[in-house]
């Protein structure tokens, strides 16, 4: 999580793209893949390398929900709130998680950078509604109780890892 910014890594990413009309979105995606968010420091560096203003890159980065300008937790929990999941009660799951982790609509990540809770519009698994994912792993037909149990399991796992 507290990876320092490696400019070599950034150069490596940039070298895969043409310097004329660079694909900002793709570059930002690669960077987010590396750091799990878009660190503030990269903006000035990208602006200089790509000859695009910082404001423009910031514009792209803030337009897409997928990009995050703040560090995310070790576990990213996504609650699907598409139509199917919504009618099968995804919101109570979201509320239970937020309550359990002390999060809110404005605060998505716990202070210890353990968990991030966010909603997505549709995960494309409507038959399994309501669906949540934890770090890309799909959990089907969830309820608030099942979700809290899952959370407690992850917490235990995490505590053990930290001990080692």
């Amino acid at each position: 999580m507290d990876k320092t910014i490696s400019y070599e890594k950034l150069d490596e990413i940039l070298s895969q793209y043409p310097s004329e009309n660079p694909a900002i979105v793709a570059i930002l995606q690669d960077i987010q893949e590396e750091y799990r968010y878009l660190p503030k420091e990269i903006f000035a560096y990208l602006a200089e390398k790509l000859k695009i203003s910082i404001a423009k890159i910031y514009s792209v980065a803030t337009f897409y929900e997928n990009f995050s300008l703040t560090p995310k937790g070790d576990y990213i929990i996504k609650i699907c709130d598409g139509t199917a999941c919504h009618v099968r009660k995804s919101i109570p799951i979201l509320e239970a998680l937020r309550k359990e982790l002390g999060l809110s609509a404005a605060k998505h990540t716990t202070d210890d950078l353990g968990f991030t809770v966010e909603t997505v519009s549709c995960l494309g698994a409507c038959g399994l509604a309501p669906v949540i994912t934890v770090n890309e792993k799909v959990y089907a037909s969830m309820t608030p109780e099942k979700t809290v149990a899952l959370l407690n399991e992850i917490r235990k796992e995490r505590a053990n890892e930290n001990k080692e």
Partner: protein
Amino acid sequence: MNRKYMTIDGIPAPIDGEKNILDIIRKVGIELPTFCYYSELSVYGACRMCVVEDKHGEIMTSCSTPPRSGMEIKTNTPKLQQHRKMILELILADHCRDCTTCEKNFKCKLQSIAQKFGLREVRFENYTPLEKGDTSSKSIVRDKNKCILCGDCVRMCSEIQKVGAIDFAFRGSKMQITPAFDMPIAETNCVNCGQCSAICPTGAIGVKDDTKKVWQDLYDDNTIMVAQIAPAVRVALGDEFGLPVGSNVMGKMVSALKRMGFDKVYDTATGADLTVIEEANEFLDRLRKGERLPLFTSCCPAWFQYAEINHQDMMDHLSSCKSPMQMFGSVLKEHAKNNMPRKKAKKTKVVAIMPCTAKKYEVAREEFRFEEEQTIDYAITTQELANMIRESGIVFSEILPEAVDMPFGIASGSGIIFGVTGGVTEAVIRYIMGEEAKNYLKAIAFTGVRGFDGVKEAIIPYNGRELKLAIVSGLANANTLVEKIKAGECHYDFVEVMACPGGCICGAGQPYAENRAKNERANEMYEADRMSNVKISSENPTTTALYNGILKGHKAHDLLHYK
């Protein structure tokens, strides 16, 4: 009969290569409202006010629809009017409507269009919480609460000026225009040109108001107030008082300033004469040595800052001359120091009246100090002066003109044309041709230095060789040229750069200039040159007296150069 036609509200209109229907609509004399359309910027199609209806009842934005032969367009139907009113109402619903205390009151496009459409009520509540304005900049103030997201400033800043200090951020109802990470604008790469504020249809970006401080000093009996007026101001101020576009109101302005309490009023064109002499000599010196060519002019503060941020490696090529405003300011302060009876210990303050917002930033720069204090105490814009004149109750249209004061009362035509793109170059050509120039004044005017092209070139013979000069206005044009020069794709001996397209007459401190106004203002500048007794800076008796007086010896360099 191979000309293509379309009809607008039943009026047949020829299509003469227009890129969109809107231009044709305006050509036939129908004024459709727009917030986001400017012919010099890319088409954005955001405001939707220019909607029209075709014969099938389909609604389209005229700014982004190319004309086709045989099209039948209506601009005024119940559906369209309802559409426009709804858009206006929704824009206003999200707008901070403190019109009476807004800087753009009476000059606001949103206000005037809402008036035109007779909007008397906004049915929707404004849920957007008020945000604090950004007053970090010396030249502009930003107030997001008044932004209608037309994006004019964004496109001006990135397309015409290639600065890109601001852009859209976030999405949908959260969208706003901001520097990256909501940084204060003063901490970005903004160069203070102010073109964003000039093009902003509302009060979302305005010019920093320094008039309160000027009034305070005008009311103080222990302060001697000296004003200097930049060349471009005289052909634009009249717009604010309903005088014919482009009228030269220099004399009226002098008399208004005197009435407001200024003790002395001078013409910055006199300072420009000093700049011509200093800069041309620097140029000739570099030519002799064959070093640091091309010489770039340095009198435009926005260009200077742009070069500092983007082309550090070229800074040696920029002239070491101060701007005319600063040169004249130094002379005025030195003169005051030498002539002030010690006992009275009155303080002299210099106010520069400028067409420019970047001058506000320039006056505060560290390089321009006179004995620890700012050489120029305040720089106010043409529009700020107009407000001061109104505030003082002077009826500008009736006031009788007066001449500027001695002992610095003479400016050459060369100094005056500084206010229009190409003027500095023309003045320098006249100077280096010396005596000969008098026979060739008209020929010099036709070397390519005049006109509103963003990039101009002139070639003049000099000492058995040819000098290649370039004139650019608009920072994007300047940037392209600098890149080419760096890459060795072209060579010039001298390059004049003005940040605002068209030069200072179209500065952001001026009343906004439509195309016609641009031409009228330029014509008046050249008219003032034709009417001046002295055409060449070195023949101005004022400058001659200065070089024999307070500018004697090393003083000239000390007072007139920043390094």
